């Protein structure tokens, strides 16, 4: 979605035509959901946080001055909503993240193998902390540059760089631990 179109919708929403906000939701829901999912690891929670993100964005839309890209601003809200959610549900999530070791009892089809491989990768990813997962996701999947990632996470550029390096090293070790390379 183009920034000019977004600016137009924001102005309309500010003027009271809030129904146009749906267009913004449709354009950004997927990317927001995936960042949430990478951070909290369960689809239900990710959807709940994504919903909260859009509501927060709607409420603070009058404060959006357009200094950064709208998507960056939205990512920022999403990132901090995830962080506060993780803080609130710290104990609960650590139990949920313990993915069962035996993935399928009757491995017959390639579908099961694929699922098993996904589980292994997820197990390895879960060893990283949520902030590192978010940084990896923003940098590699959303292809943002270091400045943008730093802007979203409110960390310094050098800190993001260091975290990225550490996350890569940790990920490599985790993949070796869970034999992810063999699964591919």
């Amino acid at each position, binding site marked *: 979605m183009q920034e000019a179109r977004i600016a137009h919708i924001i102005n309309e929403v500010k003027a009271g035509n809030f129904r146009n906000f749906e267009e913004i939701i449709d354009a950004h829901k997927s990317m927001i959901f995936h960042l949430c999912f*990478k951070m909290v690891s369960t689809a239900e929670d990710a959807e709940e946080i994504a919903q909260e993100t859009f509501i927060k964005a709607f409420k603070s839309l009058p404060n959006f001055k357009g200094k950064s890209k709208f998507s960056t601003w939205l990512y920022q809200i999403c990132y901090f909503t995830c962080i506060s959610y993780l803080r609130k549900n710290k104990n609960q999530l650590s139990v949920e993240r313990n993915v069962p070791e035996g993935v399928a009892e009757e491995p017959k089809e390639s579908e099961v193998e694929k699922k098993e491989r996904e589980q292994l990768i997820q197990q390895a*990813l879960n060893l990283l902390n949520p902030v590192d997962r978010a940084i990896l996701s923003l940098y590699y999947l959303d292809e943002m540059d270091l400045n943008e990632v730093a802007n979203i996470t409110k960390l310094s550029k050098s800190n993001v760089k260091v975290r990225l390096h550490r996350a*890569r090293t940790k990920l490599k070790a985790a*993949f070796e631990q869970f034999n992810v390379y063999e699964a591919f």
Partner: protein
Amino acid sequence: MEEKEIKKYLNSGNKANISSNFSFKVMKEIEHIQSEKERQANLNKKALRLFNRALIYTASLSLILFLFIFLVPDGIIQSTWFNNLLEKTLYLPLATCLISLVLLDRYIQIRKRLKKG
């Protein structure tokens, strides 16, 4: 680990899709927030009108009482009970003045809230 490799692994993690009625659910919630906001704004407008009226009445009353006490010469009003009342209750105009000041303050606060939305 190479960049391509990381992308491949990150993409192959657990997959999940957002529910198809996600936008609808969010819009429903936003609609609720918006209607609550409008209800609040209407209440504020009503309160503003009420305070406005009360302010005018008390301020006028206070002004009239002050006029009677300080400007109207003694004995011009024949009613003794009224003169007695004014003499005995000098605090009355001060009290009404104070009330009107409090109302004015509330009035300004509600106006500010309405402006903020």
